[in-house]
Structures are given as structure tokens and as C-alpha cells.
């Protein structure tokens, strides 16, 4: 009974939903399943009677009515219809056998609580006097109301009310209401009414001859021409996106968040608000909207105003406000990334325009990259200029979008940062691929990144950069971030062509991030935004040799910006620290940009860059910056792109570190944004067999198709995400293993990311869930493949990224650079290795626990982390192999975990502890290795020292998590493999797709897990150099194995089992 009843309850529910939606019932069910995140619910596919919508509707609508049920034997039962099963078994409550003889025979002992009748036994069921309207939800429709009226009104048709024609007064008003589309009475009607009713005659002259000259209409050719011209102009204006966006703004299509929770904007904004608050007659709305709308756009977009792209962004924003909100939770990253990309992309490249909200983000990145690549290839100087220009032009637009986005997206500043990083990452990845680093890519990180797609990787680099910067950043987020960026930049410069493009992209992204930061910092006034915008250009000028030219352009564009830029210059030159602090994000960003640009430019630029970094870092960052540059230069070629990416993250991270306490949410948001961007890129890479040379072109191609694929997976992710939440309590759920793993990670991640969350582990999880659901919708919007990836990242990223960026950026930055390089180049090599040696090596390296999956994974991660560090610091040659495996992990980790680590190691610890409780056992096993690892890293990397200690602790939790869920491990590995594969092998692409499809969940998990991974990496960075080699080798094999598993989901599972 209970079973059936339960089933019945569900069915009625689903039936009700489906019935309401009609044909879309099935979809709704699916959606519910996802939203609910309950595995069972999702798995519950309507079968049997439940698949028959009308049968479900009818049977559900008679629930609770008395019925007579006749069985084969002719016996009649009377009871209250309770529910039914898919097989159409029926349940009657309070049923009794009806004997024809006694009418009053109902006795208590005859009643049966409930009886289940098998469908095969039922002949006829008679429900008497059923009111079909009883449970209808639309009880207030005309039909519903009319049908329920007492008496015999059923046949009475509804007829329009003529309102009594005799009464002029009444009829007039009523008619006007019905037919008058205008707002209220027509003036002539009012005059007429007054005249008829009260004898008042108006002296009103519609021609307003007293005030103006009436337009004389005639048929002259000239007049007709003018009229046609006017009509044409009107059409053009009204067809323009700007106009539409403004109109949309006028019509209060902004999200609630933007209206009520957004940061206070500048004067212009306020102006608009005031207008909005006032009632504006429809006729006047367009005009006014135009005027003030323009003002608005200008303020936020400044630069954008000049270029077309900004407009699209606005449109996207306003229309998608609702979506954005959702996005904010889950897909916030996606939105931000688009915005940033848009901003950057629009001016340089048209593609972005084509794809507004989310798609734009990817497209922009692509466009930006291509240009950058050429420039980079051509010459350092040109390259530098390119970036700077982009920065200037793009910067402002980004700013505006960011501001808008930020409010809507809950201030996704972090996200915005992330996106840039993501772009960079992807770019870097391709460039890097050629280099030896491939080995790292093979690492588990790859798997995550693959699922998450590029986003994670990008983040990871950023995070890495962040990590490097971390030492400096703490005081000033902006400065800190800048430093890391600079270092990466230098590294990138060596990278060569591929790096250069990346750099450019990164610079743009960085700008975006800066902009966001600035906005965050000074949301109150537009002026602030302007300053940030200006500042970037100014910075670029002083710092970058080539950039100065760019700066002028910016000045031309915006006088204000110029002023600000000047200010910035002064600050940077004189005392970067204070200014930076004040400016926070902007100055750092600028510096970072400059530095990046310089590196991109090549050696010449590098020199400037370093200084820039020093200036910015000054108090905290100088040391780190100097350190970073050196490694970067060494790594330069491979890392360049990575460095750039990392730099972006670092910036955010630095800002976050400082801001965390103050603006934790913002940071988080930003981070999320970035992750999305990264995700997209990775996918792109995958499709591209030879991304290294020309990352941009391949990405676009790959992205579209992948994106589609990804979307499905994303949905899956969301579901999985839900599971994770559930799981935290019960880590060991066989079926859900992978999800559980993820979940566990997720919680941790979230906790670590947002300090506030720490106290309440559950909270993060919940949020993540929410995000997922939201994210799914967002995913839908992106239609294109990339969005999907972004979404998934967004989920994890939101919480993770935010904090991670900050933290990760500090320590991670270096790692990323090295790792990223390794990953790409090694990929091929690493893959082969991966295949053969996989798991065995890992266990030994990490710790005693080799057999356990979790351990392996942990080891893998650990090794990876160390590997990257080693590369960066010690020897490039050695690093490559290890790096390859680590890279993937590290990237992934960087993206997600990287942020986490950076933000609040402590938090992570806490979070881990919280979530790990069940996993404590795991910890014990794992703990030994991780700690050792952490110590090592710290010493090695001064910057990382801080984090390293904390990281070590983190690592344990992460490891624990991994251990818990074998599937996660596998996923991770797979992900890493997929990532690697994209760059080098087409086959990998296939794998990735498969992963995405089947492994969507894993990927999500991976995302959450990534953060952990990131942490691991960071820790490793510090000290584990010695361990690195071993670890690196092990990781690679693991990844290879995972790759295979990924190909087929079943296979993956098998792997897990085997491992287990």
C-alpha cells in the first residue's frame, strides 16, 4: 500500500503539472526532476498509465471520491478512491464489501483501511457525482466560474456587456476602457464629455499655434521627401539596439536586483531612476527614454557608447535581467563572462554582437584572441599596442556591462574576473599545448576542466596567478592581482605567438575584472567607474611602451577617462600602494594589464611590466611580483598565456583577499564569472586538434557544437549538484557516489569560498543547488555549446571561484603558469604515459593508500600540485611531464579550488572539516600525505608559503572527498584527460563529449572538486618539488585511464569499480 500510495501521490502531482502544461507535460517533469535534484525523481520516468496524460488527469481528478469497484467475481466494493499505480492498480480507502442485501450494513469491522485492487481484477469502477471542477486550479476563469454557478446556468453563454447604451456617462467611460489603447482618455473625449455634461467649452487648440508653427502638410515633392526621410530616420532609430535597450530600460524591465539591491550608481544612474519612478505617459516614454537612456549608456559604457558592442550588452542585460538573476546564483559566471567578453570583444570583433548574452562572451574571447594572436606573432610592440587599445576601448564597455551585470548578477565581480581568466586559460591552453607541459594536462585536473570545460582551467591559471600574487595582494586586492598578472604576462611573452593572443585576451579580461572590481569598490558613483576605465588606459600608457599610443585613443574617447588615467599614472609612478588601495581593483588591474601587455610585447615589454608589477605590489606584492616574473620568464613561453590568465585571477584574488571580509559575495561572484569563461575555452580547445598555433579559430568552431553537447550535461550537473547536497550527510551512497563526491566537495568548496558560509556548511550546498537550477535555465539560453560549460562552472564557480580566485591567485599563479604550459605540450606524451602507468605510481607517491580511488586521486592531485611548482621554480624539463598530469588537475583545481584555497584556506579547512566529518576516515588515510606535501610547497614558494600551510590542511579534505567518491576520482582524471585531449587529439574531443553527456554529473562534481584540486596544487606548489616528479608521473597515468573510462560512461564506472 505504502508503495502504491507513494507512487500515486507522485503521479497525481506530475499529472497535474503535465495537464496544465498540456503537451509540455513531459518537459515539465524533466525540469522538475532536475530542479528537485532527486535522483529518483529524475529517474522516475512516466510509464504505464502515468504516461497517459489524460488517464492521469481523469483518475487524479476523481481522487477522494466515493466509488463502487466491481471485481471479476462480481463483488462490489465501496470506498474512497485513494490513488493508482502505473499498472493501474487501484487503491480504495475505507473500503468495504458491498452486499446488495443490507443497505445499512456498513459496520466498523467491515471497513478496511485500504485495499489495493490489481488492474487485472477490476471490471468496472463507478465514480458517482464527480465534480471535475473541484480540483481545477483555474477556478477563476470564466468557464470555471460559470460552470459552478448555482442552478442551471451551464448553458448560458457569456456575452459581452453593452453597458447600457442609454446612459452616456457610463457607456462613454466603459467604451474608452475597452477600446482606448492610449493611456486614459483622449483629450477630445474629455472636452466633449465636459461640454456635454457640464457645458464647459475648452479653448484648447491642438495645433498649439500659440507656441509653435503647425506643420503644413502638402503633396509637394520636397515635403514627401522630407517625410520619407523623417520616417526613415525614425525607423533607423527605433530599430537600433540602443533605442530598444533604452526603451526596455524605460519600461522597467530591469531585474529586481538591479532596482533594489544593486550598488548605488552615479548621478546618471540616479537620474534614470528618478525618471523611472515617475509616471511617464506612453507617448512620452520613448523620447524620454531615448534621452536619459543614452545618458545611462554613456555613463556605464563610456567606451561602449562609441562602439556597437556595448549596446548589445545592454540589451542583453535588460531583457535577460530575469535570467541574469538566475544566472547569478548558478549561471552568474556565464553572464559576467559574456559581458566582459562583450565589452572587450565588441570593439575589436563583430562576432560578439551576434551572440548577445552568453554566446557573446565566448565569441568575444575568440575575436579578441585572433587579433591578439596576429599582433603577438607579428611583433612584440604591435602586440602590446593591441592589448592596450583593446583595453582602453574594451575596458570602458566592460565596465558598463560589469556594473550592470554586477548588480544583476549579485555583483559578480569575481565572476567577471574569472571569465577573463577563463578566456586566457583557454587561449593559453592552446598555446601551451605545443610546449612540453602536456603531462600536467593529463592530470586529473584535465577531467574537471573538460567537464567544466575551459572555465575551470582558465580559472586555475588565474588562481595560480592569484596564488603567486597572494602575498602581495592581501593588502590591496587590485595590486595583488596586478602583480600576479604581471608575472604571468612576462611568462607569456616567452610563450610567443599563442601566448600573445592570450595575453591580449587576458589583458582585456583583466580590464574587465578590474572594471568589475572598481565597480564593486565604488558602486556608488559612476565616476568611479569612469576612473577605473580611465585608469587602465593610463596605466597601460606608462607601463607599456607601446600602450601610450593606446592611451591617447582612450583619452579622445573620454575626457574624463583621460583625467582619471592621469591620476592613475601619478599614482602608479609615485605611490602605487595607497592609490592602489584606494583604487583597489583598477590600479592593480591596470598594472596587471600593463605588465601583461608588456610580456606579450616580448622582452622589451617584460622589463616595464616588472616595474609596473613592483609599483603596484609595492607593499605586499613587490616581492611576490619580482619572484613571479622570474619564474614566469623562464616559463614564459609556455606560461605566457597561462600567466595572463592567472594574472587576471590573481587580481581578483588579491582584491578578494582584501575585500573578502568586506565584499566576499562580490568576489565570489566575480570568480564565478571567470570560471564560466574558462570552461568555454577548454571545450573549444578540445575540438581543435591543433589549438596551439591558432587557438582562437578552433575555439569558435569547437565551442558551438560542444556547447550543445555540453548543455545536456550541464543539466545533468545540476541534478547531480542537488544530490551532492543531499549526500553531504551521507557520503557513502553507492549509486550517487560520483554525485556524492561532488557534493561533498561542493559543500567544502562553497564553504571555503565564502567565509560567511563557513559556519553553515549546508548553506553553501543549498546555494549551489539553487545555482544549478538557475544555471540550467541559463544554459538553455546559451543554446550554443559554450554556455553549458559555463553554467556548470558557474555553479561551482560561484562559491568556489570567488574565494578561490582571491586565494588561489596568490599562490596558484606561479603554478598555473608552469602547469598550463606543461599541460598543453605534454598532452600527447602525457597521454601515452597516462595510459600505461596510471594509478600504480600514484598511490605510492602520495601515500600508503594506493588502492583506494580516493587516495589515488588525492595523490594525483597532490602530485600535480607539486609538479607545477617544480616546473615553475626548479627545472622546466622535469616539470613538463609531471606538469602535464598536474596541469589538468591544477588547472581544474585552479579554476575552482584555486580560488578556494586562495580565498580562505582556513575556510576551506573549516569547510572540509564540516563536510568531511563522514569522510574523516578518509582523511586519516590521506592526511599524512597531504600535510607533507603542503609543507614542502610552502618553503619553495615564498608567496605560497602562507597558503601552503593552510593548503595542506585543505588538501586533506579534498583528498578525503576524492577518496570518498571513486567516481569523482575517475571523473577528475577523465576530465583532465579530456582537457588534454582537446588540445592535442581529436579523439579526446569525442571523449569529452562523451564525458559531458554521460559525465556531466561528474564534471559538476569535478568542478566542486576542482577547487579542492586547486588547493592541492597550490599546496604542492609551495613545497613538494621533490615529490612533484613522482606525483607528476603518477597523475598522468591515472588521467589516461580515466580518459578511456570517459569514452563510455559504463567504462568509467568500471574503472571506478576496478580501482575500488
Amino acid at each position, binding site marked *: 500500500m505504502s508503495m502504491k500510495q507513494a507512487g500515486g501521490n507522485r503521479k497525481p*502531482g506530475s499529472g497535474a503539472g503535465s495537464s496544465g502544461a498540456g503537451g509540455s507535460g513531459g518537459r515539465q517533469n524533466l525540469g522538475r526532476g532536475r530542479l528537485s535534484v532527486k535522483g529518483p525523481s529524475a529517474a522516475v520516468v512516466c510509464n504505464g498509465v502515468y504516461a497517459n496524460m489524460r488517464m492521469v488527469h481523469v483518475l487524479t481528478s476523481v481522487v477522494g471520491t466515493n466509488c463502487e469497484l466491481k471485481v471479476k467475481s462480481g463483488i462490489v466494493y465501496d470506498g474512497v478512491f485513494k490513488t493508482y499505480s502505473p499498472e*493501474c492498480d487501484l487503491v480504495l480507502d475505507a473500503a468495504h464489501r458491498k452486499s446488495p442485501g443490507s443497505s445499512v450494513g*456498513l459496520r466498523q469491522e467491515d471497513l478496511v483501511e485500504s485495499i489495493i485492487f490489481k488492474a487485472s481484477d477490476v471490471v468496472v469502477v463507478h465514480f458517482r457525482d464527480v465534480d471535475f471542477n473541484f480540483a481545477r486550479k483555474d477556478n477563476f476563469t470564466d468557464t470555471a466560474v460559470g460552470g459552478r454557478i448555482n442552478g442551471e446556468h451551464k448553458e448560458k453563454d457569456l456575452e459581452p456587456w453593452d453597458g447600457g447604451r442609454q446612459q452616456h456617462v457610463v457607456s462613454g467611460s466603459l467604451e474608452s476602457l475597452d477600446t482606448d489603447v492610449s493611456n486614459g482618455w483622449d483629450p477630445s473625449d474629455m472636452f466633449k464629455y465636459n461640454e456635454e455634461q457640464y457645458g464647459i467649452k475648452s479653448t484648447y487648440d491642438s495645433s498649439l499655434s500659440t507656441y509653435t508653427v503647425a506643420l503644413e502638410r502638402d503633396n509637394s515633392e520636397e515635403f514627401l521627401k522630407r517625410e520619407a526621410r523623417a520616417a526613415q530616420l525614425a525607423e533607423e532609430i527605433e530599430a537600433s539596439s540602443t533605442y530598444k535597450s533604452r526603451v526596455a530600460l524605460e519600461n522597467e524591465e530591469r531585474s529586481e536586483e538591479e532596482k533594489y539591491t544593486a550598488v548605488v550608481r552615479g548621478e546618471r544612474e540616479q537620474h534614470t531612476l528618478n525618471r523611472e519612478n515617475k509616471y511617464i505617459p506612453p507617448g512620452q516614454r520613448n523620447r524620454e527614454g531615448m534621452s536619459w537612456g543614452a545618458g545611462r549608456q554613456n555613463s556605464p559604457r563610456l567606451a561602449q557608447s562609441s562602439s556597437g558592442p556595448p549596446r548589445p550588452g545592454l540589451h542583453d542585460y535588460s531583457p535577460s535581467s530575469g535570467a541574469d538573476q538566475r544566472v547569478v546564483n548558478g549561471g552568474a559566471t556565464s553572464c559576467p563572462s559574456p559581458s566582459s567578453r562583450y565589452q572587450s570583444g565588441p570593439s575589436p570583433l563583430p562576432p560578439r554582437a551576434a551572440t548577445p548574452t552568453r554566446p557573446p562572451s565566448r565569441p568575444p574571447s575568440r575575436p579578441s584572441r585572433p587579433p591578439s594572436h596576429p599582433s603577438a606573432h607579428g611583433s612584440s610592440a604591435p602586440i602590446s599596442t593591441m592589448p592596450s587599445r583593446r583595453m582602453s576601448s574594451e575596458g570602458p564597455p566592460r565596465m558598463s556591462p560589469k556594473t550592470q551585470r554586477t548588480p544583476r548578477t549579485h555583483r559578480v565581480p569575481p565572476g567577471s574576473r574569472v571569465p577573463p581568466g577563463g578566456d586566457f586559460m583557454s587561449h593559453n591552453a592552446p598555446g601551451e599545448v605545443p610546449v612540453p607541459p602536456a603531462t600536467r594536462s593529463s592530470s586529473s585536473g584535465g577531467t574537471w576542466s573538460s567537464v567544466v570545460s575551459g572555465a575551470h582551467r582558465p580559472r586555475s591559471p588565474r588562481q595560480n596567478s592569484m596564488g603567486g600574487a597572494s602575498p602581495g595582494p592581501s593588502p590591496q586586492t587590485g595590486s595583488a592581482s596586478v602583480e600576479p598578472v604581471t608575472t604571468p604576462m612576462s611568462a607569456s611573452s616567452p610563450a610567443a605567438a599563442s601566448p600573445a593572443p592570450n595575453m591580449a585576451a587576458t589583458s582585456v579580461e583583466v580590464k574587465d575584472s578590474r572594471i568589475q572590481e572598481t565597480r564593486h569598490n565604488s558602486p556608488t558613483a559612476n565616476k568611479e567607474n569612469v576612473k577605473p576605465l580611465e585608469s587602465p588606459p593610463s596605466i597601460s600608457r606608462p607601463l607599456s611602451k607601446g600602450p601610450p599610443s593606446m592611451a591617447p585613443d582612450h583619452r579622445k574617447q573620454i575626457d574624463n577617462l583621460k583625467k582619471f588615467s592621469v591620476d592613475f599614472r601619478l599614482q602608479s609612478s609615485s605611490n602605487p600602494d595607497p592609490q592602489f588601495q584606494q583604487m583597489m581593483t583598477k590600479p592593480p588591474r591596470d598594472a596587471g594589464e600593463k605588465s601583461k601587455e608588456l610580456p606579450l610585447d616580448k622582452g622589451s615589454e617584460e622589463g616595464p611590466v616588472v616595474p609596473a608589477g613592483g609599483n603596484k605590489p609595492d607593499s605586499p606584492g613587490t616581492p611576490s611580483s619580482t619572484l613571479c616574473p622570474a619564474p614566469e620568464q623562464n616559463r614564459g613561453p609556455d606560461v605566457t598565456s597561462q600567466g595572463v590568465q592567472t594574472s587576471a585571477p590573481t587580481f581578483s584574488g588579491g582584491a578578494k583577499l582584501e575585500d573578502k571580509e568586506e565584499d566576499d559575495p562580490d568576489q565570489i561572484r566575480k570568480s564565478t564569472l571567470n570560471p564560466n569563461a574558462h570552461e568555454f575555452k577548454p571545450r573549444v580547445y578540445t575540438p581543435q586538434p591543433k589549438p596551439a598555433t591558432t587557438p582562437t579559430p578552433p575555439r569558435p568552431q569547437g565551442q558551438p557544437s560542444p556547447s550543445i553537447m555540453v548543455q545536456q550535461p550541464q543539466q545533468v550537473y545540476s541534478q547531480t549538484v542537488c544530490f551532492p547536497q543531499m549526500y553531504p550527510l551521507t557520503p557513502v551512497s553507492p549509486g550517487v557516489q560520483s554525485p556524492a563526491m561532488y557534493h561533498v566537495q561542493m559543500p567544502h568548496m562553497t564553504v571555503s569560498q565564502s567565509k560567511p558560509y563557513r559556519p553553515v556548511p549546508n548553506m553553501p550546498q543549498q546555494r549551489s543547488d539553487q545555482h544549478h537550477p538557475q544555471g540550467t535555465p541559463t544554459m538553455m539560453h546559451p543554446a550554443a555549446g559554450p554556455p553549458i560549460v559555463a553554467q556548470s562552472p558557474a555553479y561551482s564557480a560561484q562559491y568556489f571561484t570567488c574565494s578561490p580566485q582571491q586565494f588561489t591567485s596568490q599562490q596558484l599563479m606561479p603554478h598555473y603558469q608552469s602547469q598550463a604550459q606543461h599541460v598543453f605540450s605534454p598532452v600527447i606524451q602525457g597521454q601515452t604515459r597516462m595510459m600505461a602507468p596510471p594509478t600504480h605510481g600514484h598511490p605510492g607517491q602520495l601515500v600508503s593508500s594506493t588502492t583506494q580511488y580516493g587516495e589515488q586521486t588525492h595523490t594525483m592531485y597532490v602530485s600535480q600540485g607539486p609538479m607545477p611548482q617544480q616546473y615553475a621554480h626548479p627545472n622546466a624539463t622535469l616539470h613538463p611531464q609531471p606538469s602535464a598530469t598536474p596541469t589538468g588537475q591544477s588547472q581544474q583545481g585552479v579554476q575552482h579550488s584555486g580560488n578556494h584555497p586562495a580565498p580562505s584556506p582556513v575556510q576551506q579547512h573549516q569547510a572540509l572539516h564540516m563536510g568531511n566529518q563522514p569522510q574523516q576516515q578518509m582523511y586519516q588515510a590521506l592526511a599524512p600525505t597531504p600535510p607533507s606535501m603542503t609543507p614542502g610547497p610552502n618553503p619553495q614558494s615564498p608567496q605560497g608559503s602562507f597558503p601552503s600551510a593552510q593548503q595542506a590542511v585543505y588538501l586533506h579534505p579534498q583528498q578525503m572527498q576524492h577518496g570518498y567518491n571513486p567516481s569523482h576520482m575517475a571523473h577528475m582524471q577523465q576530465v583532465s584527460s579530456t582537457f588534454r585531449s582537446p588540445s592535442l587529439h581529436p579523439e579526446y574531443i569525442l571523449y569529452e563529449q562523451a564525458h559531458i553527456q554521460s559525465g556531466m554529473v561528474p564534471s559538476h562534481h569535478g568542478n566542486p572538486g576542482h577547487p579542492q584540486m586547486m588547493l592541492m596544487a597550490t599546496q604542492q606548489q609551495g613545497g613538494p618539488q621533490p615529490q612533484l616528479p613522482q606525483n607528476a608521473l603518477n597523475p598522468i597515468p591515472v588521467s589516461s585511464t580515466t580518459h578511456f573510462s570517459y569514452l563510455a560512461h559504463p567504462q568509467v564506472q568500471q574503472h571506478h569499480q576496478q580501482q575500488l
Partner: protein
Amino acid sequence: MAAPGPGEYFSVGSHVSCLTCLGQRLQGEVVAFDYQSKMLTLKCDPSSRKPNLHDVILINLAYVSEVDIINDRTETPPPLASLNVSKLANRARSEKEDKLSQAYAISAGVSAEGQHLFQTIHKTIKDCKWQEKNIMVMDDVVISPPYQADNCKGKEGSALSHVRKIVEKHFRDVESQKQRSQAQQTQKDSSLSS
């Protein structure tokens, strides 16, 4: 006629007549049909003749000897309205409770009149229950056998007077109904005799 969709052997809205293996002829408008379970749902005119109500018959076609389609419906079936599931669940629960309480009263030896009165009161006042053979209304008014208006006891007040009115009306209605039925009976008798 609306062409039956895949797997549909009856188009929704068509009128069908069928004869069950127990010799019962059923006729009504097809509301739904599930091929797998062979379950056919018909909507019939209400046996109570009340407007806006219908009888719903769920037939297992496995036990139906003949099925005749009287006419097909050309219109497409109306869209399904969404249902308030919680409302349905509440109805199921309350119906069950009512039946159980009724069974309790019957088992307690309450007269048919008493049960009838209880049903009537329950329509107006949900808060009534059996206490042995007494009817407790709102925990305030007790109606003891033989359940006449004079048997209503409790604190003087609006509640008591209100219950009394209900009881009085109930018996008035019962009386009038009897007379009506008697009249009908006499008419039938007279018509038959004539």
C-alpha cells in the same frame, strides 16, 4: 472524427457503449483510454441528475464483451486543466474520515434517522462527531436519541439555537421528502392501475 493518436483506440470525446462480462451495459463519453492496461474511462450523466456533476466509469476492457462506438467526436479534446493535488488529497482524507465515523456510528447501533441527521449536520458543521450514540457538535451541543430538536442540549447560546434550527429543518425536509415520494408513489400506482 479526431483520428486516434498512436496507441489510441478510442478518440477522446467519442461516445462508446460496452457490455461487461457481468452483463452490465455502460455508455458514456470517452475521457481517456490506456492501451497497456486496457483501461477505458467514460464520463456519463450523473446518476443524481445534479448539474455540473458527472459519473466517471473506469472500465477494464479485458472484461468487456462488446464495444460499440456510438459516435465520434470531431472536435479536438479540450486541454487539461491543472489540478490542485493538495485539494484532492484533502478530499480523500476527509471522505475517508467521514466514512469511518459513519461506520463507527453504525456499529454503535445508531438509528438510521440518527445517521441521517448526522450527515445533514455534518454538511453544515464539519466539527461534529459521534460520542456513543450522541452527536457532539462543536464540542458544545449534544444531541441524544431520538435526535429531535428537543434533544439538543448544551450551553444556551447561539450555538445551541443554531443546531436546533438545523435539526428542525432536517426533519422538516425529511418529512416533505417522504410526502413527495409518497405522492410520486401514489401517482405511479394510479398510472399503473389506470
